[in-house]
């Protein structure tokens, strides 16, 4: 085989990484290079340096160290039985590429993942070495996210956490039976065990940093995972139950949902249709309700049918329509929890209402100034000069509130 240039490798190894949904570069500690004289900073809030035509932000150099893999996960382009072109970066390739891109202000940092070569430990060592060289040799202050290999030794994970802003372990599938069927070399139990270990360390490191500023950092941006949607028959209820378990038990920062994309050289056992992007979107909305609005999976699923979220309306509205007896909510009296349940009211809106009503009782006019779209919330709230009357009992409320049929208008500028 002739030797590939760095650009050729990049083409192959970026292509192989594009199915990873994570792109965030936020939520880590603030850093800059003024003291070190190096390159790179993180401001806590990531910056999107570009956008791809798929609408996703490009903030990190997202690549694989190599797309050779000894494993054979059916949903993955890199599985050993796949026919794709293979390439491997050296550790120094990745280091140089990251710095070259960073210095031109193309990226916020690096998101590095890898197929499994030789052994899980060997692979993990290479990933860690990239991060170590960036931080120690080049005084790189940008963002680093490493995807860890669950099967690797826990000492290696520990070292990874010293250099990385965030670590992730992809669970990929919502239930262990699917994992066993589609990713025969992996084990759900092991993945969760590794997550638990990470979560524990991150928690401990945070606590130590509180008492001593000198305590070593460990993955200050937390850890995250990804689940593929639509590669196995799990319904939305199953997916959200799994997520909620992951948030609760292992303290994950984020669960990313990635609608399964048809992949080149797909295995026969998998669907080859376009990804259910709307389903993915609804799952993100539901996930949001779990994390910031005090909803339980059971709450969310009351608005679903046959275990799937309603694709026409968002899950909060779906829940409200099933629980009309909880409305209308009085914006001048209700507690925060009830306000958060009002469709169309976000956490910011609720915060503003709570602040504003300390000054005076809120009227419709005040709500108009506070909310993005007061029309959406009107059927569900009472204000000094507003009562929705019998609107809530009306049978066609669903039809009235669902978004108007949208035209496919990809190119309207």
């Amino acid at each position, binding site marked *: 085989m002739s030797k590939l240039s*760095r*650009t050729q490798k*990049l*083409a*192959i190894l*970026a*292509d192989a*990484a*594009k*199915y990873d949904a994570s792109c965030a570069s936020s939520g880590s500690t603030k850093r*800059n*290079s*003024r003291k*070190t*004289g*190096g*390159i*790179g*900073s993180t401001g806590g809030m990531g*910056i*999107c*340096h*570009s*956008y*791809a*035509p*798929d*609408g*996703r*932000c*490009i903030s990190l*150099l*997202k*690549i694989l160290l190599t797309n050779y893999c000894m494993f054979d996960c059916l949903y993955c382009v890199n599985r050993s039985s796949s026919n794709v072109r293979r390439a491997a970066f050296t550790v120094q390739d990745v280091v140089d*590429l990251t710095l*070259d*891109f960073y*210095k*031109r*202000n*193309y990226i916020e940092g690096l998101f590095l993942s890898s197929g499994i070569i030789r052994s899980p430990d060997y692979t993990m060592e290479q990933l860690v070495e990239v991060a170590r060289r960036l931080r120690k040799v080049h*005084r790189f*202050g940008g963002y680093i996210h490493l995807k860890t290999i669950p099967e690797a030794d826990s000492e290696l994970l520990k070292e990874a956490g010293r250099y990385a802003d965030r670590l992730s372990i992809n669970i990929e599938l919502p239930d262990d039976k699917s994992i066993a069927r589609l990713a025969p070399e992996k084990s759900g139990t092991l993945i969760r065990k590794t997550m638990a270990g990470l979560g524990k360390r991150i928690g401990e490191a945070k606590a130590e940093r509180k008492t001593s500023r000198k305590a070593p950092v460990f993955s200050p941006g937390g850890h995250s995972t990804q689940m593929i949607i639509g590669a196995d028959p799990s319904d939305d209820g199953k997916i959200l139950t799994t997520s909620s378990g992951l948030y609760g038990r292992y303290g994950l920062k984020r669960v990313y949902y990635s*609608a399964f*994309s*048809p992949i080149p050289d797909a295995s026969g056992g998998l669907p080859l249709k*376009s*990804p259910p*992007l709307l389903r993915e979107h609804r799952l993100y909305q539901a996930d949001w309700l779990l994390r910031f609005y005090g909803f339980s999976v059971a709450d969310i699923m009351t608005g679903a049918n046959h275990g799937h979220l309603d694709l026409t309306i968002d899950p909060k509205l779906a829940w409200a329509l099933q629980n009309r007896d909880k409305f209308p909510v009085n914006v001048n009296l209700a507690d925060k929890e009830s306000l958060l349940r009002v469709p169309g009211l976000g956490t910011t809106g609720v915060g503003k209402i709570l602040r504003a009503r300390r000054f005076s009782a809120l009227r419709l006019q005040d709500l108009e*100034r506070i909310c993005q779209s007061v029309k959406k919330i009107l059927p569900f709230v009472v204000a000094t000069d507003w009562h929705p009357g019998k609107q809530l009992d009306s049978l066609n409320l669903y039809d009235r509130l669902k978004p108007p049929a949208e035209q*496919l*208008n*990809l*190119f*309207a*500028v």
Partner: protein
Amino acid sequence: MRNMQPLTDTHRIVLESETDIQGWRDQARAMIQRGTEPGQLVWSVRNRAGMGELDFGEVTHQQARPANRPSSEIRIDRAFLQLINTALLHKNEDRFALAYRLLFRMQKTPKLYRNPADADVRKLQSYEKSVRRDIHKMHAFVRFRKVGTRGNREQFIAWFEPEHHIVEAVGPFFRNRFTGMDWIIASPDASIAWDGENLISGAGGCKQDFAQEDVIEEEWRSYYRNIFNPARLKTQAMKSEMPMKYWHNLPEAELIPSLVRQSGSQVQKMLDRETDISALTGQAVEEGHWTPDSLSELNKEMAVRTADYGDNFSVQAVLGEGRADCGIVVVGEQPGDQEDRRGRPFIGPAGELLDRALGDAAIDRKHLYLTNAVKRFKYVQHGKRRIHQTPSPADIKYYRWWLEQETKLIKPRIILALGATAVRALTGRSLSISRTRGAILPLAANRHLLVTVHPSYILRIPDAAGQDIEYDKLVRDLRKAAAFAATPDINGIMAEQWLKCLAFDL
């Protein structure tokens, strides 16, 4: 109060530069202490061109800028100060007066700046928001190019066109991020540089003189091409976050049309229903099998062959006019009443405004080729008057082929589209004027498109201030087109040369 007399007449205050916020603060403080009414002050900036009509009033208080500022009884909240500091970087020239008016009113109502229902507050806040967004986009979309090394330090330069006066303000961010290298970021009005020890503010530059290539860009484009998942095309989301006006400084943006075109067949079906972005480089429909040899032949045929099209059109076809060899074609909408009577383009009120703008942009009308998208006057008769009718998409489509032949024969380097009809005729799409305005967009055959408003749009703006703003933008766009047409190959010019035109060295 000090023993300063309140001013009686209108006075002009001259700030040192567009970003002289300290100057504004000193002057504002002094003026507030004298009790000067906002209406008595005219704020301007030294060397700001073209604002002659505001120059009345004696220049005052140059000396009044105190070396050590008077301890003041004016206390303002930190939050308000932040609002002002940011909002004053806005490009609109009324910002200094606006901020002063608010400050003045706050002497009576101290917390006024917190009232979101107040018109002045809202305006200032909208300025602040716009500036913040611009700063954020600048953090994201600056692209450095490597130009060399000095000792063991690498040297980079970047060209960026911010909307507001933010170049100095972003300096600390880039210093903290890129401490270990030397860099310059230049814009048309100002530049900022870092040499490892100091942030240095300097004069503006010109894009033509700026390094055009960096080997890494090819790798970056390769990354961009491959990280995109064609199964999930969502160009609208992309465009709302990365507006097209930034594209011409992003090396990866040139890939977008082809990436969109090549995305999977699922998406392709949707695409077919929509006119897609590739229409920007697409061509008009073929009209028969005839290829004109010359402009005069084309025009002669056009006058005859299009005579029967449509009921509401005048009999006369108004042909394009001007020089065909200067590189700029200006395309308007359609001839108006006067154009139709006299058989020449751009001679009515809109034409007069265009002439004035060309004059202010130092462009000789004779050096342009002026034409219209639709070649006949479309109108309805109202008594004796003929009322202008906007051409329909069908009308535009009908004349597209003729316009295309016309530009093919002229081979301009840049086509200036005045308004939506012209854009549609040139691209086959309806692009938003506000979002594409001022950017130089690629068309087929190494031609370029610059979108701006039609002069008649400016004439329709009700208030004089709004007219002035739009007029200035039109002049700016005209200058930009002329500059572009005058530099046949911007790739050839070396970075060193550009560095020379700045006021400092790396």
